[in-house]
């Protein structure tokens, strides 16, 4: 097997008295699209910036394409494509001018027009940055990451804050990059994005890796296919719920009951019978296929969105 494109072992990053990354081990194979999934403040951006050679780790080892960061690392940088969170490009420059500028930093790479075509911005070549929408600006920053024709791409929250159609456009671009065999490390707090784009995912929270694997394997690790959510006007004891057929896990918070189950068709009739017997009324009953969100909830004890500021 070829050597991994990205490796970190025992990665720690401390800012004053805050521990952003707390002993992280990761390995990303060449040609793989790897996702760091976690809520805001989980240490995803810090981890990526350590890989990018922008932040020095407090402890631990990092290898990118078999090399370590030393000095400015220009030779290594020439092989990487980097998209940062929320870059504000100069408003008064044209899209084509920014691409020409970034292209000049690389000895070899794509023609600026080609990079723009790949992110579907070919027609905006002469437009001022000021006139671009949020999605278009995000695609411009992707084009800047692509213009050096990199072997490894770092995408930090590429779709945060975008509307659904812009998000799907970005996904299509990333899927095209995967087809071209590029190694991609992306961070996201959208489980839907991780499930769709990533070959493998590491779930991180508070700077620690909670689990890693393919999205399907992580969901399967719950030992359950379905999640039953129930809102009631009275309390039910957990032991009775856990004893219901096919129930793997019970979690109760804020009046919301969440049962992870193998077969909802077997659980639900028994659950309704239990409610009737206790005289508790169901205000809402819903069931859905288990997702990475449920994996995260099971591992971290809170939801992916829970540390996001109210939008």
């Amino acid at each position, binding site marked *: 097997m070829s050597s991994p494109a990205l490796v970190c072992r025992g990665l720690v990053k401390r800012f004053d008295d805050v521990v952003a990354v707390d002993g992280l081990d990761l390995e990303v194979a060449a040609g793989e699209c790897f996702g760091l999934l976690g809520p805001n403040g989980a240490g995803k951006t810090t981890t990526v910036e350590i890989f*990018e*050679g*922008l932040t020095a780790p407090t402890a631990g080892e990092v290898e990118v394409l078999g090399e370590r960061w030393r000095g*400015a690392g*220009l*030779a290594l*940088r*020439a092989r*990487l494509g*980097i998209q*940062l*969170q*929320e*870059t*504000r*490009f*100069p408003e*008064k*420059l044209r899209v084509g*001018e*920014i691409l*020409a*500028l*970034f*292209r*000049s*930093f*690389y000895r070899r790479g794509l023609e600026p027009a080609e990079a723009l075509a790949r992110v579907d911005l070919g027609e905006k070549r002469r437009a001022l940055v000021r006139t671009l929408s949020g999605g278009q600006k995000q695609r411009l*920053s992707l084009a*800047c990451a692509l213009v*050096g024709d990199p072997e490894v791409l770092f995408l930090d929250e590429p779709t945060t804050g975008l509307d659904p159609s812009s998000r799907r456009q970005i996904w299509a671009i990333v899927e095209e990059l995967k087809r071209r065999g590029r190694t991609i490390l992306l961070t996201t707090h959208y489980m839907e994005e991780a499930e769709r784009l990533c070959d493998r995912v590491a779930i991180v929270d508070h700077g620690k890796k909670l689990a890693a694997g393919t999205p399907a394997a992580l969901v399967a690790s719950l030992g359950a296919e379905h999640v039953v959510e129930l809102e009631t006007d009275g309390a039910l004891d957990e032991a009775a719920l856990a004893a219901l057929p096919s129930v793997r896990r019970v979690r109760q918070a804020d009046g919301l009951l969440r049962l992870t189950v193998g077969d909802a068709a077997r659980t639900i009739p028994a659950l309704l019978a239990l409610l009737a017997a206790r005289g508790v009324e169901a205000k809402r009953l819903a069931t859905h296929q288990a997702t990475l969100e449920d994996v995260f909830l099971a591992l971290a004890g809170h939801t992916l969105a829970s540390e996001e500021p109210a939008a």
Partner: protein
Amino acid sequence: MSGLRARLAHSPLVQLTRARTVEFLREPEAIFWVFLFPVLLAVALGVAFRNQPPQPVAVGVEAGAHADERARALAASGRVAPRILDRETASAELRAGRLALVVLDGATPTYWFDPTRPGSRLARLETDGALQRAAGRSDPLAPGELEMTEKGSRYIDFLVPGLLGMNLMGTGMWAIGFSLVQQRAGKMLKLFVAAPMRRWQLLAAQVLARFVFLALEVAILLGFAVGFLEVPFRGSLAALALVCALGALAFVALGLLVASRARTIEGVSGLMNFVMFPMWIFSGVFFSNQRFPELVQPAIQALPLTALNDALRAVLLDGLPLAALGSELAILAAWGAICFALALKLFRWM
């Protein structure tokens, strides 16, 4: 040719300089402040402080028996503008400074004036001469008069080099400060560092972009001053070019230093004003810095804008060669070198 163009297109230094230049030219406010404002300021101040032809001295004549005769004699001299008024009005006008002197009525005239006012003593001389001659005095000597109206000694001549120096300072510092802090706040600097860009090239591009405008900026203001305001240009073009280039470099370096850590436009604006304000006052832009006490002169002379203004005046007004400007050029070079070295050390990229 196309090979050269391709090479230029792939040179980070060219691309960074080009981006910076284009960005600046698309900012209409910047064009106004850099190119038009100094010209407008020169015109406004030139008009306000223009040298006027000598005006006749305003003198009052107290109403009475001899008033008409004396007023006629004074008016005939051409150097005094007499007005006849009663004693009370005359007193008020004299106090207000609208009259320099009043001739009181009486067989022998009495001159009423405040001897501490230079204008009044002049008025006494002119008035007395006119009245004596009218009374029949004949002067034993009749000297001729030669008026000096040489260019180069007017206020506007003093002002223009100062405005040029101030503009070189302001443009260098504001343009660099704003663009760098904006790029830092918008994470552009971080993205540049993440790409395989050599860091010195970004700073060098700021300097190069500054030089693109420098020639234009100097040419517009000086062209206007020499062409329309008849400000003299006695030195050599080469000396002027070197002084302007060294001055611009010193202020680009100072701008880099001031903008080396700030994260917000507000922060850098405050710092810029803090650094530039003393120089607007002490460096002899609008008035000579010789008015400040001897004690603070060494500090004033060490300021980069003082050195630049002194050198510009020496080249434009006195036509001095570069060899005579050693200390000014050394001060500018020292500011440039020290600030650039410090800026490189302190610079915050992300």
